[in-house]
């Protein structure tokens, strides 16, 4: 009999299992089930795994803070075998195991919690959609994949989850697969992710061939020696001088992994799929493309921070890419008119923030922002979805407005979320963002080029505040620009949709209070919690650590960030509430800039010109080659040759072989002709033959009898 | 005298009884047949609350003679496309077959043609089965669809039911242990029981089979006037038709006699071995006297002189025969003839009872459909007859080998047979009418 916490730890594997079971159920027999049953199974399963996750988290808190790690190997998945590595073949094994440490603990709580809320929300949102069971089946499959991803105890299993979420995002983006744009968006997301995954996979191979293991850590395992982990191997190699700080190999690995992260988390070169992904149903955007999946990259980098901390170049790359992405996306978001597009770009820029944090070494800050962002961005998306639902499918901001009192249960939480993302204290976004900026600033004290990053971050914060408030004002304030036919049936969303909104609002208020201690200059409890994961393998290197700066600086920074946020809000208020015509004037006064922003810097067009069309041309060339050379010469030539040969052999068969056979046949027939004449087939003639035989017999017999009689005489 | 005449005299001396009886039978059969027709019509009338023929003679007593005359003087039509030879020949066959089969029968302990031949019963069956050659040939020869259909039907029916009837007879023959007719009756008198009580199932199956063999209702499909005008007799008229008719009635007499011999104890009077019932030997005399008295009574009521006179004549005839039956009691030297006379009386009584049952059934039961008929024959009677033979054999085995009581054994086996019968009937009911029709369509010719 195990006690409760032990139970939750021991049955960690149940957490991904519940959604998997219901997903299978849906995909096989879902068609036959009524909606109520679908709701019961799918939402219920997610709720179950959320409860298990909570229980596991509590159990984890119960542990000793030094090694709060629980690892569980279910079975050996890829059986051990030598793989070629630097310096000869090395034993390699991948097991199907789950790892629960503070990082993954946070992740599963976010995933299952937000996921559960979004499931509940979807009941109301998808109520009138076709393919109900299909939708929930995909969602549950996604939950399974995501949980596998965050709970994986090695890179290969993580990659399984990674691909699984990719697949689900593809399926769900193309959920309305009858819409061409939707299916195209799905394909685009899939293909763009492939580019990143290639890099990620290469990174995994590098790790496997260099460290000989892909297991993250051996902590929490019975026999740490037998089950080597990356971290342990790394430290061992460092101590044995087989690796040094900033070794090119580590940089390569880190960069390759980061390529994967950019793919999955929509960072700068590969972010293009995320805006199009908004074609999917809004809950999907909320769950996959805002809260959970897109943060997989962040999670992965945080998970492998031990490597990153030893590769400063890679760290710089990450930070720069993150910062650029943040400001870039934010600038695009300024002028977008589709409500979901705006949110999509804001997501990209927030992700950029996270990578900025990771890049400057504030892993816990990044993860912290990940969590808060999950709350308020999910809330924003759901709110947007609720608005769209209320306006019966209208997504264009220019056709909204004045909804503040018509949909109160949606607009109030939306306001909270907006303030949160804009960074107004004491909401969640303020703390996490301030954390990041503070870290960046503190980093600039030691490495002065980070000052640039800090400035970018500050500007981005201002932009963020501006475009979010623009969105808020356009949607809810001012005069209503709603088209009349939609006007008269605007309606508040059902309870299943509004209740999750409120819960999320509450979360995005209190979500950031982990960081309260920073106000009086202490380490945020969240960081403390994540310490064991983020502390890296060798404390005494130049690797980034928690930056201490004085309380004064702290408050100063906070003031600056709040001030710039307020500035953004004020500008938005001016431009969209006081003088609604002002922003169009602005757009008119800088038409080129406005166009560039409106067309998202023409990135898609450039990509088409550079990559897509080239690839098309290449494939056309291949097609021509195939048709002309392979089919023409190879296949048809072979066929022609065969025809000629077979004609020859046919001639031989006909005249020589058959000829002989027929010759024999005619010979036999001519011989047997006389016998054939006897064979009339008329049985009376046969009877005559019988009689003839009888006559002959009797003649013989009579002759003998005569002889006998003579002898008697 | 020449050896030839000597031989002839020798022959006559050896075979005079046979000759006399043969002549008597050949002479009597038409008369009996005619009056059987009269009786039948009277019976029908009675059952239908009519009077029936009353014109010719008192109560139509002379009707048969009138019919015979009519038939004899009627024109004998022969269809143009008919096959002369066979058309002429066929009626004779059926008549002759019936008469010949009578040759082996015993109409009383002494009243017989052939002395007790080894295979008497078989002879009777075989020869009487020749009768339908006449039927089928006649039907074929008259070259008409009705006729040929009737012929085919009757043949199929005959074949089917002869099998069942023969097997039913086997059950009695097993009990008798011989083919000799006289021996069979003697066995019954020794066992002091008629075989109907020992083999009831066999008797009733033989009853059904014999009705079918004589083409009488409810199995009279070969001459079902509502379906094919008169069956194989359609084209016949006049004397040939009469021949067929006589053949049929003679056949009836034959089957009745066979049934009497095998199952009803032949010429034995009821309880023949019970001493104190021997007064029954007087019953012929009593019956005849009663008949005569009745005739006198009716004679008083006759409107016309002639008719009352005729009734007187009949009454006197009855008294005369009664006297004939009485003489042996008076003249002791004639005592030897007594059993013969009584036997003949009892035998004819049983035969007429049997024929009466035929008529009764005819007026009572509706006609079968042909497939139903075939079904009854092939799916119920024949299997049941086979089972019956086996069960009787089993009973005899139990009696002889295991020393059971004969009655016990027979009761047990009879119950067994009846169970099988019930099962067969159940099976038959389960078969749908359509299915049966399909089955019969092929079976009616497979005979």
């Amino acid at each position, binding site marked *: 009999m195990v006690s409760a916490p032990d139970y939750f730890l021991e049955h960690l594997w149940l957490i991904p299992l519940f959604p998997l079971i219901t997903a299978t159920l849906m995909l096989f027999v879902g068609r036959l089930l009524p909606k109520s049953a679908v709701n019961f199974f799918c939402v219920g399963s997610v709720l179950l795994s959320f409860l298990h996750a909570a229980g596991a988290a509590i159990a984890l808190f119960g542990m000793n803070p030094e090694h709060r790690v629980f690892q569980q190997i279910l079975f050996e998945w890829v059986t051990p075998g030598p793989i070629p590595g630097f310096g000869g073949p090395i034993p390699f094994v991948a097991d199907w195991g789950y790892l629960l440490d503070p990082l993954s603990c946070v992740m599963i709580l976010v995933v299952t919690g937000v996921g559960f809320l979004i499931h509940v929300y979807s009941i109301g949102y998808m109520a009138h959609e076709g393919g109900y069971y299909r939708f929930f089946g995909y969602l549950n499959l996604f939950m399974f994949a995501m949980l596998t991803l965050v709970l994986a105890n090695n890179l290969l299993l993580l990659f399984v989850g990674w691909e699984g979420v990719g697949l689900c995002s593809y399926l769900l983006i193309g959920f309305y697969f009858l819409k061409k744009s939707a299916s195209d968006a799905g394909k685009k997301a899939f293909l763009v992710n492939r580019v990143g995954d290639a890099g990620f996979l290469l990174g995994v191979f590098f790790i496997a061939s260099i460290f000989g293991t892909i297991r993250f850590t051996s902590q929490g395992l019975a026999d740490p020696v037998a089950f080597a982990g990356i971290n342990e191997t790394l430290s061992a190699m460092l101590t044995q001088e087989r690796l040094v700080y900033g070794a090119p190999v580590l940089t390569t690995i880190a960069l390759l992994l980061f390529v994967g992260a950019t793919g999955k988390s929509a960072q700068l070169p590969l972010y293009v799929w995320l805006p199009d992904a908004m074609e999917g149903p809004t809950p999907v955007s909320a769950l996959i493309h805002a809260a959970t999946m897109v943060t997989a990259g962040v999670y992965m980098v945080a998970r492998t921070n031990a490597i990153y901390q030893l590769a400063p170049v890679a760290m710089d790359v990450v930070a720069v890419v993150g910062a650029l992405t943040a400001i870039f996306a934010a600038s695009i978001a300024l002028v977008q008119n589709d409500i979901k597009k705006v949110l999509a770009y804001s997501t990209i820029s927030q992700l950029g923030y996270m990578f900025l944090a990771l890049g400057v070494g504030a892993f816990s800050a990044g993860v912290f922002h990940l969590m808060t962002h999950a709350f308020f961005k999910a809330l924003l998306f759901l709110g947007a979805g609720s608005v769209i639902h209320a306006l019966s499918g209208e997504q264009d901001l220019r056709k909204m407005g004045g909804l503040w009192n018509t949909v109160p249960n949606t607009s109030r939480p939306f306001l909270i979320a907006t303030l949160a993302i804009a960074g107004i204290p004491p909401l969640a976004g303020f703390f996490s963002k301030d954390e990041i900026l503070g870290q960046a600033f503190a980093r600039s004290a030691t490495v002065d080029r980070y000052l640039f990053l800090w400035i970018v971050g500050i500007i981005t914060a201002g932009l963020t505040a501006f475009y979010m408030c623009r969105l808020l004002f356009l949607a809810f304030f001012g005069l209503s620009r709603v088209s009349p036919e939609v006007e008269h049936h605007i309606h508040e969303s059902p309870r299943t949709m509004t209740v999750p909104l409120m819960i999320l609002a509450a979360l995005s208020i209190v979500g950031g209070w982990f960081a309260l201690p920073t106000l009086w200059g202490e380490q945020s409890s969240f960081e403390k919690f994540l310490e064991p994961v983020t502390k890296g393998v060798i404390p005494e290197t130049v690797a980034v650590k928690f930056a201490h700066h004085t309380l004064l600086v702290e408050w100063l920074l906070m003031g600056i960030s709040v001030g710039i946020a307020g500035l953004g809000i004020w500008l938005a208020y001016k431009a969209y509430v006081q003088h609604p015509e002002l922003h169009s004037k602005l757009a008119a006064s800088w038409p080129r800039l406005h166009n560039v922003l409106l067309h998202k810097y023409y990135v898609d067009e450039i990509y088409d010109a550079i990559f897509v069309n080239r690839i098309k041309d290449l494939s056309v060339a291949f097609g021509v080659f195939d048709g002309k050379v392979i089919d023409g010469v190879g296949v048809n030539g072979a066929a022609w040759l065969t025809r000629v040969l077979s004609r020859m052999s046919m001639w031989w068969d006909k005249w020589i072989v058959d000829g002989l056979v027929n010759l024999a046949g005619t010979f036999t027939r001519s011989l047997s002709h006389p016998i054939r004449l006897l*064979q*009339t*087939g*008329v049985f*009376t003639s046969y009877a005559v033959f019988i009689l003839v035989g009888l006559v002959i017999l009797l003649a013989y017999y009579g002759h003998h009898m005569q002889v006998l009689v003579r002898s008697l005489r | 005298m020449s050896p030839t005449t000597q031989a002839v005299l020798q022959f006559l001396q050896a075979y005079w009884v046979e000759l006399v009886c043969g002549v008597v039978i050949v002479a009597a059969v038409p008369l009996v047949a005619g009056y059987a027709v009269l009786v039948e019509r009277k019976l029908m009338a009675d059952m239908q609350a009519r009077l029936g023929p009353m014109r010719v003679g008192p109560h139509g007593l002379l009707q048969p003679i009138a019919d015979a005359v009519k038939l004899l003087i009627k024109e004998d039509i022969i269809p143009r496309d008919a096959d002369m030879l066979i058309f002429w020949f066929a009626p004779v066959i059926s008549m002759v077959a019936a008469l010949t089969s009578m040759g082996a029968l015993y109409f009383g302990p002494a009243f017989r043609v052939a002395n007790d031949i080894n295979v008497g019963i078989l002879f009777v069956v075989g020869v009487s089965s020749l009768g339908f050659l006449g039927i089928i040939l006649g039907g074929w020869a008259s070259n008409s669809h009705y006729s040929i259909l009737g012929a085919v039907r009757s043949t199929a029916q005959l074949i089917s039911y002869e099998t069942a009837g023969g097997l039913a007879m086997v059950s009695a023959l097993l009990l008798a242990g011989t083919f000799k007719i006289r021996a069979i009756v003697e066995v019954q008198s020794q066992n002091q029981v008629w075989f109907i009580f020992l083999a009831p199932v066999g008797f009733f199956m033989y009853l059904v089979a014999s009705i079918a063999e004589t083409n009488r209702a409810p199995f009279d499909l070969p001459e079902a006037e509502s379906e094919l005008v008169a069956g194989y007799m359609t084209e016949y008229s006049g004397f040939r038709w009469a021949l067929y008719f006589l053949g049929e009635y003679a056949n009836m007499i034959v089957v009745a006699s066979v049934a009497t011999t095998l199952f009803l104890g032949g010429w034995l009077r009821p309880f023949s071995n019970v001493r104190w019932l021997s007064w029954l030997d007087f019953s012929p005399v009593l019956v005849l006297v009663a008949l005569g008295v009745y005739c006198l009574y009716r004679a008083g009521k006759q409107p016309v002189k002639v008719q009352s006179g005729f009734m007187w004549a009949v009454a006197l005839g009855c008294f005369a025969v009664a006297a004939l039956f009485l003489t042996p009691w008076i003249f002791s030297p004639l005592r030897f003839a007594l059993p013969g006379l009584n036997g003949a009386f009892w035998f004819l009584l049983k035969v007429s009872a049997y024929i009466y049952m035929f008529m009764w059934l005819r007026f009572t039961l509706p006609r079968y459909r042909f497939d139903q008929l075939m079904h009854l024959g092939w799916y119920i009677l024949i299997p049941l007859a086979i089972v019956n033979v086996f069960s009787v054999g089993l009973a005899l085995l139990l009696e002889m080998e295991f020393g059971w009581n004969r009655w016990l054994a027979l009761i047990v086996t009879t119950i067994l047979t009846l169970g099988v019968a019930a099962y067969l009937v159940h099976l038959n009911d389960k078969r749908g009418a359509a299915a049966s029709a399909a089955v019969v369509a092929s079976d009616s010719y497979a005979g």
Partner: protein
Amino acid sequence: MMSPAHYLFLSLALFLIGCVGVVTRRNVIVVLMSIELILNAVNINLVMFSRVFGDVAGQVFALFIIADAAAEAAVGLGIIIAFFRNRETVMTDEMDLLKW
């Protein structure tokens, strides 16, 4: 006074007639009937000799022959009916499917 020769000659005559019927008639039914005739001729001999030697075996064999004849007739006629259904004829010289 009858001698076996009488019966022998009788059966010989019937046998020959049967043979002629078999080989000359075109109607299969008649052919079958001729075969029955031949069998009967044989029966006569058997019964006669059983009579001569006072042994019943001959009659037994005659019985077997009769049974055989019955079987043969049944099968033969069945064949004839089937054949007639297919070919609408019962003439021997039209049953020459065996001819090559």
